[in-house]
């Protein structure tokens, strides 16, 4: 009994748990509203489907959250998704073994992460600009990989690959969902339980203080960008597996979705704050909105307006909740 109370208290003490609870309530409300608007929304078929649609958003959200917590931003995510999709598909159409292609692809994408980290932490470029640059460059690479064409079908040899990343199921759940669950567990562990994770928070909170405490700024920042690039590369592979071909503009705007998911889930764009549990909820809200609004038959224009308002309001809520307390404390 006491143990449980203790657990609850400790849960609530975790950084950012408050915001996570707020948005979880929001998510539940959304689901109820959509379920009422259109009963199919709540069908088991749609839920499996919905989860699979949310999975990539969770992945890019994890990556962006890592970077945001260091106090930076990664605008190159979408382009890395495109790069990953094109490189893997091109290699497979050229006859490389799909799993070898996967490894090469991930390696190439991680390089973008390394470059981002170095530009931001070592060369001290503003992260917005540095990753705006690599975003353009990575998109260029995605386009140049197959000489400015989308690739042909990756063929039957890649069936295992396609099943692994998208079409297969394990224990009744789509593999895509498993991938995002497993990666989430790993990255959540790394962020909350390891030294590198601690350093990521420290850098985002006060980079000078972290430096003076002997935290390697360049190394840690680069690690965060590598995580982001890795997650994006996995999403690229999922997209490649989904459509069975490489598309040059895959992942367009994903960096913004990732920011939205992170921020809705309570990750601060100013660094030092947020937990990956929030990112999952944020991604779920994003995915449910897209899916639910389609079922509700809302035209694109309305959808944009609704999504924009939800982004603003959710952060507004957070700001009100968060500054309400410290301000009070300040004044007494």
């Amino acid at each position, binding site marked *: 009994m006491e143990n449980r109370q203790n657990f609850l208290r400790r849960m609530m003490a975790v950084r950012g748990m408050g915001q996570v609870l707020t948005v979880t309530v929001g998510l539940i409300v959304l689901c109820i509203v959509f379920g009422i608007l259109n009963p199919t929304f709540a069908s088991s078929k749609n839920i499996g489907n919905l989860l699979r649609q949310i999975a990539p958003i969770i992945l890019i959200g994890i990556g962006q959250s890592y970077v945001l917590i260091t106090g930076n931003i990664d605008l190159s995510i979408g382009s890395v998704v495109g790069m990953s999709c094109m490189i893997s598909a091109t290699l497979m159409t050229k006859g490389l073994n799909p799993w070898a292609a996967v490894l090469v692809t991930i390696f190439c994408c991680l390089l973008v992460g390394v470059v981002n980290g170095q530009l931001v932490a070592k060369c001290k470029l503003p992260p917005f600009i540095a990753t705006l640059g690599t975003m353009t460059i990575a998109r260029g690479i995605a386009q140049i990989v197959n000489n400015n064409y989308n690739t042909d079908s990756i063929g039957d040899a890649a069936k295992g690959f396609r099943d692994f990343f998208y079409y297969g199921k394990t224990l009744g759940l789509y593999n895509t969902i498993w991938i995002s669950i497993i990666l989430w567990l790993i990255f959540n562990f790394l962020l909350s339980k390891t030294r590198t994770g601690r350093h990521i928070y420290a850098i985002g909170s*006060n980079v000078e203080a972290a430096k003076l405490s002997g935290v390697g700024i360049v190394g840690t920042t680069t690690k965060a960008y590598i995580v982001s690039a890795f997650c994006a590369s996995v999403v690229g592979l999922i997209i490649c597996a989904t459509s069975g071909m490489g598309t040059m503009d895959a992942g367009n705007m994903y960096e913004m979705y990732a920011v939205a998911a992170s921020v809705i889930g309570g990750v601060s764009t100013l660094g030092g704050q947020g937990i990956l549990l929030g990112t999952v909820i944020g991604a779920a809200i994003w995915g449910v909105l897209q899916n639910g609004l389609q079922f509700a038959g809302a035209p694109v224009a309305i959808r944009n307006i609704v999504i924009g308002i939800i982004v603003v309001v959710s952060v507004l809520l957070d700001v009100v909740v968060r500054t309400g307390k410290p301000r009070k404390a300040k004044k007494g």
Partner: protein
Amino acid sequence: MGEYIVEVSGVSKGFPGVLALDNVNFNLKAGEVLALLGENGAGKSTLMKILSGIYEKDSGTIKVFGEEVHDMSPKKAQELGVAIIHQELNMCSHLTVAENIFLGREKTKSGILSDKEMEKQAKGILDKLNMDISPDTVVGDLAVSKQQMVEIAKALSTNAKILIMDEPTSALTSKEIDDLFRIIRQLKSEGCAIVYISHRLEELQHIVDRVTILRDGQYITSMDFGDTNLEEIIANMVGREIKEKFPRISCKKGKKIFEVKNLNAGKMVRDVSFELYEGEIVGIAGLMGAGRTETTRAIFGVDAKESGEIILDGKPITINKPMDAIRAGIVLAPEDRKKDGLCTKLSIRENIALPNLDIICDKLGIVNRKKEKVMTQKAVSDLRIKTPNTEINAGSLSGGNQQKVVVGKWLARNSRVVIFDEPTRGIDVAAKVEIYNLMNELKRQGIGVLFVSSEMPEVMGISDKIIVMCDGKVTGEMITEEATQDAILKYATSFEKKVAAEA
């Protein structure tokens, strides 16, 4: 006491435009407390940063424990047993106390952070410092003085043999200072060597064995503290005699200028009332966190007021935002110059002009560059701000000169009341005297001066009337001639009675 464990000889270090250290020597023995003294910009922090591996020296040699160190880095310094408490607060405000204390040296068990273990150890150190805070408190929620104590705890937790403290007390309360001194004495008895930097010279007598003095980046002298006195130390620091540490002028007390009646704003400003007269400086004393800054901010319209009246020259005025106060003739030189006082990326000219654009601009809002230049030049020469020209960034000035710019931008207009919040914090003796002279000049002109300070000698030395605050309330008021340190302290700590009463 014995051998030198740190021997620095002939160290030089230049920054663009300045030679911060010029062929400096510095020695430290085991088991001593050495005060490193000098004016603002003398190079004290720079020297210590070189010693702790944050800056690289341009030339010279450093020996630690008899061995020459060539490639000093923060990591290396830590391995050698050198720890430093920086002049500026360097906390990760989102992390907890324990997380901050062990930042960069986290304890892990097979790769997993052992948070429990670290919290336990942090608790031990905090207890040693008599600090009653839980190690899992988020640092950002702590008061500044507590954060400074955490900073000290962090340095202690490294079990350093050489501990450098760069102005550790500038944000501490007197009780905390006592605890710190107790710890320092204890460390000393354990054989630890401590470098102590402070502009509060009256502290030295409690702990210091030896002093080393720098001036303009040059080594001046080292003396045993017992063989010298404050006058000699100051003369060495400043390079000339300072006749009066607290110059005072006497003026005739004139008519009432300004009155605050029953001001309430949040929990830290409760029912505050006081009056200002022509020809007098009113000092507000109190401990850190007494609500003095909050009071000034509420008056100036930065924070919202709940109730209360503000009367200027007999007329009640409404102040909802700083511009209202400025227009009415009430100005505030805030406490934290980096955070609240200066636009560090803008030039001195732009900083001084900023609150005075209403005077400088014509009807269409276009800045009159001539008027602006005249105003800036006047402020720079009146306050003797040391700068090559008025176009350089305010951020690149030394602390004292930055403070002068903060003050200077308010003197360029004809105000009725000037509020100074801790105007002398962290600036050297000579610069302090200049600020005092400035306040005296305002007093002579018949302008009301309100002066917040945590340093009792200063309050007693400069003001004509002293108001003491504690816990958001005015707990005492007295004429300076009748004031004693004990009396002020008694009023400043009268919240304990309240706590007792509540309990």
